[in-house]
């Protein structure tokens, strides 16, 4: 399980007038869930498709365990991918969809039944794909990805269309796969879900890397934007005391102020010096959503 590292290096894709992906480099480590984030049109799907040899890069490389996808001897044993929920023939049954893949990959037919049971679709095995709900389609996609018991999982928006129970199931599945040493790369724009799921983050916008690191690192990198919430009966005195420190102070009603530009100890010291009474002093850590929006702000998605 040591060779499941994904390395993207200088990856670039030009379409006619658009640089969909622009000199993008990052790594994804085994044994962790890596969230791949970006606004719509940031180039997430194109990047994943280049990684999987579906789209030809204009420049740069993407390797899995040191090899390009096209050079993998046993692709399904190495990588399982879920790219779009609707990728099965509408008139074919779920079990036959998996059997077709088994035949091409040289797996025994029984493997199709096993993965179907794993995702809880056995009762719908003989139903045609057009009769599947969106959540069932996602499960079938995951079943297909698990056929080869791969070391690396690549999922593009897997939570789309899942109900809360399905999302929880997906989260537990991906976490346990990572805990067993597999590499899990998940693109998503469901940020609250990512905060629960991911260990590492890769954030891109307009085809370029914005941030990479563990969730904590990414959050801390934006710590300067952390807000301090303070409540005092002497609003005016405190406001002028903080203004001297070049802090931005926004009244938040009920005698509360939101302060940015000065950390909590700084606010406390300023209050003590000015002899202002404090009733509340808390740091409001930004959540992933705010960090994400600040990091990608101004990098228009529509290009």
């Amino acid at each position, binding site marked *: 399980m040591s060779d499941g590292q994904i390395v993207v290096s200088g990856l670039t894709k030009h379409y006619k007038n658009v640089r969909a992906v622009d000199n993008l480099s990052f790594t994804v480590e085994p044994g962790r869930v890596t969230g791949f984030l970006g606004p719509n049109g940031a180039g997430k*799907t*194109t990047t994943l*498709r280049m990684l*999987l*040899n*579906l*789209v*030809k890069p204009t420049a740069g490389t993407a390797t899995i365990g040191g090899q390009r*996808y*096209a050079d*993998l001897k046993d*692709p*399904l044993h190495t*990588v399982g*991918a879920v*790219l*779009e929920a*609707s*990728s*099965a*023939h*509408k*008139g*074919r*049954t779920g079990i*036959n*969809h998996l*059997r*077709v*893949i088994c*035949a*091409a*990959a*040289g797996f025994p037919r029984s493997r199709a039944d096993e993965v179907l049971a794993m995702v809880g679709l056995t009762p719908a095995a003989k139903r045609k794909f057009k009769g599947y709900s969106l959540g069932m389609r996602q499960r079938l996609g995951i079943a*297909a990805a698990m056929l080869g018991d791969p070391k690396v999982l690549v999922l593009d928006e897997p939570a789309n269309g899942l109900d809360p129970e399905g999302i929880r199931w997906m989260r537990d599945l991906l976490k346990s796969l990572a805990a067993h040493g597999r590499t899990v790369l998940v693109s998503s724009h469901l940020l609250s879900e990512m905060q629960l799921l991911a260990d590492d983050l890769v954030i891109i916008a307009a085809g370029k890397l914005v941030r990479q690191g563990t969730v904590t690192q990414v959050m801390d990198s934006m710590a300067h934007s952390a807000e301090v919430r303070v409540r005092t009966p002497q609003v005016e005195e405190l406001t002028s005391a903080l203004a001297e420190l070049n802090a931005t102070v926004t009244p938040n009603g009920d005698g509360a102020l939101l302060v940015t530009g000065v950390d909590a100890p700084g606010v406390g010291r300023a209050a003590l010096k000015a002899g202002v009474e404090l009733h509340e002093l808390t740091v409001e850590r930004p959540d992933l959503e705010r960090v994400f929006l600040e990091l990608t702000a101004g990098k228009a998605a529509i290009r």
Partner: protein
Amino acid sequence: MNLVRSEFLKIRTTNAWWLFGLGAFAMLALTFLINAVGAHYSLTEPPPEGAGPQVSATYDEVYQAANLYTSGQFFGLLFVLLLGIVVITSEFQHQTVTTTFLTTPHRTAVIVAKFVAAALAGFGYWLVTTALNIPATIIFLNAEGFSSHLGDTSVIRAIGLNLLAYVLWGILGVGFGVLIRSQIGATVTAVVLYLIGTIAGAVFFSLIANWLDWEWFEDLQFGLPSIASGLMVSGTNIPGQPQYWVGAVVLVAWVAVTGVIGTMITRTRDIS
């Protein structure tokens, strides 16, 4: 081999093959009836007075026998063509091409497997068609008081080359489907080209040939794959027409060209 099994399983697990098969069967029954009526008159009556050598040549037992044994070819080939088209376009229609190329990143191998699977399907159509044609023709010829001619070299040759036509048209369909990825677009274009293009081509080349008095120009119509297929299975040589093997060469050339172009396009195409 695994890939061919997988491609064949794809055909078997969807409805197109038996729907097209049903269509081919219905058209086979109809064309056999028409051929039988035609054979009845041309074998019992002399050619009409003043008929050209081309028409007279069809008033021949062997020609009519070969024609009967290969009944249903015109529409059978159309359905094989459509099946070949569906083999490739359904992958784009249902976005399964992503899964297919993830499973097998070597795209040439995938396309070759599709060619083989479509050819096998063509073989299947030929097998059923021929299995129906042979007893029906024997019964008809015996009832009319003729020998079955089934042992004649030219009849066997016609049946064998008919098999070649069915196989090649399956491959042709896959090649065509690569060029026009939209399933509805590819099937409609193929049907229109096949039905109208064949007739229009024949008329066009004949008219130009008559108008400019270029006899050789009329033979260019045998460059059309559908007309070449008909030529290939004629039991006897018709005066003024190229030899049967010219049809086979033309068809193989078409298949080679569409096959190579189709493979090359597939190899470099972005799947998104």
